[in-house]
């Protein structure tokens, strides 16, 4: 597969944590390519390093060694400020606990990432309107997170994740805090993001049901990929 069509390209990636003078290896020698437009589910037992791998790909954590190219960028070479800018442009985040700003309305939460772009107020309003419509929350624009159900909050979070039109969406157990019906709802939405908008999605999940919705399954065990 040519380099340009790879969303993620990982070679011999190693990551360990230091705790009280001890080195705790978390990921040992991960090699993995993910094509652009792929929908990958990352599974594995608790503590196997799924979140760690996802965080490295998303550029919110740093590996010890290896190669890590995401959307064609060697993100290991970026400094903190460059990495922050890169994330703002290329990665959309979906968290297990939604992580919305409680003092902002649904509209304002979705608008937040756009404040880092040069977009004017009117363009922002338009885009936020489209995104909230896409996740089916046009009637909840002025609601605060505390006034929304978990499923609705996660939909707001998805709208926030796609608002800057990033290539990659990373989701760490996006349905982990939701009931069956809401979870199906969210997974359906993510499928649409993948199919209709062509987003590359990498999703960590414990739920085999959720994993089935992905097109590719990867298993981690004790920091090693097993297929």
């Amino acid at each position, binding site marked *: 597969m040519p380099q340009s069509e790879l969303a993620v390209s990982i070679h011999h990636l190693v990551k360990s944590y230091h705790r009280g003078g001890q080195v705790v290896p978390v990921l040992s020698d991960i090699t993995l390519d993910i094509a652009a437009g792929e929908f990958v589910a990352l599974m594995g037992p608790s503590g196997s390093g799924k979140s760690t791998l996802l*965080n490295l790909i*998303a550029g919110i954590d740093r590996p010890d060694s290896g190669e890590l190219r995401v959307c064609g960028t060697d993100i290991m070479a970026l400094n903190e*400020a460059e990495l*922050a800018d890169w994330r703002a442009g290329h990665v959309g985040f979906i968290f297990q*606990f939604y*992580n919305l*700003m*409680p003092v902002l309305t649904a509209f304002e939460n979705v608008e937040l990432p756009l404040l*880092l772009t040069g977009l004017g107020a009117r363009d922002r309003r338009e885009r936020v309107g489209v995104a909230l419509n896409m996740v089916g929350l046009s009637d909840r624009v002025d609601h605060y997170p505390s006034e929304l159900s978990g499923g609705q909050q996660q939909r707001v979070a998805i709208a926030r994740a796609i608002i800057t039109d990033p290539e990659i969406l990373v989701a760490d157990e996006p349905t982990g805090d939701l009931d069956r019906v809401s979870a199906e709802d969210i997974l359906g939405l993510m499928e649409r993001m993948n199919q209709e908008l062509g987003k590359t999605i990498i999703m960590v999940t414990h739920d085999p049901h959720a994993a089935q919705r992905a097109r590719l399954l990867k298993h981690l065990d004790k920091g090693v990929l097993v297929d």
Partner: protein
Amino acid sequence: MHLLKLILRNTLRHKLRTLLTVLGLLVAILSFGLLQTVVDAWYSGANNAAPDRLVTRSSVSLMVPLPVHYREKIRALDGVRSVAAANWFAGVYQEPKNFFPQFAIDAVPYLAMYPEYRIPEDQLRDFLRDRKGAVVGRKLADTYGFRVGDTVPLKGTIFSGSWDFVVRAIYDGATPRTDTSQFFFHWDYLNESVRTRAPQRADQVGVFVVRVADLSRAAEISRAIDTQFSNSAVETLTETEQAFQIGFVKQTEAIVIAIRIVSFVVIFIILAVMANTMAMTARERMAEYATLKALGFGPGFLGGLIYGESLAIAAAGTLLGVALTFPVADWFARQMGTLFPVFEVSASTVQLQLACAAVVGVAAAVLPAWRAARVRIVEGLRAAG
């Protein structure tokens, strides 16, 4: 704009916590302002001193009187415009707690030297005509309800016996900072009475107030006066009125220093309270800061949020505190009567209040902002669950 909106909403997030912190700041800034005003009041005599007035006293101590005949010798010196005798009387009006300063003065030259005491012309004439007459300041008159024509009985302490004076004039201050808590009467009347009651204490003067014609020669004239009496029975010490007043305040400097220290301790305490509030707030929001960082917001934005909130709270408490300082100081001044001749909130006090508040607002945010800027995103997000 969006930053301001976030700051405002974050500030109102824990309404009770914010309210209590604002109240604490209010009380601290108010107390600080009042204590600074007390310190100012202490120095008001020195601040009201005129540069062309000198005070000549015994070089030994204020307790040692000067012979009255020094008056003519001082007046004869080159550059001296006028001289007035003044004796501290220290009489008691009804009860010892009713303190106000009383001076026996050479009325004409003395009052001419203090143009800031404004006396209606007819009242001044009446006062000069009545040997037992007195001039009282407006604040003093208001405190004890003295009116023109009233007799004020004073019980002597330095000069024993009962003394009756008739209020002939009430003076107003040229500015709000002029001391209008004083009581003046004729030195000649004091001296005549002393001559009959205790002849050996007659013809003695506490201090001479000297007015010089040319400000630039004040130091030279001071030296000339002291040289004049350098080999006399009572040697003199002449200094500017301001130096004299500061010397007076110096005796109680320890109290002033203590008040100053307490006023800054109050600020320090509120700083600790504020810093604790901000630290608590920032700790609770670490996951939000981490999320913002993940979305690409930098340490500057997080710093803006935290400093902004801290300064917003500080500003609210301070504006209320400063606004309240004026009425409370007024009330305080009324309760204290003539104890503090001048009790005015000065511009420099307000400036100090604002400066302290700015320091508190900034300092309280330093540590939380630093932590938020440094927190690793994955660690901060972990706090979310």
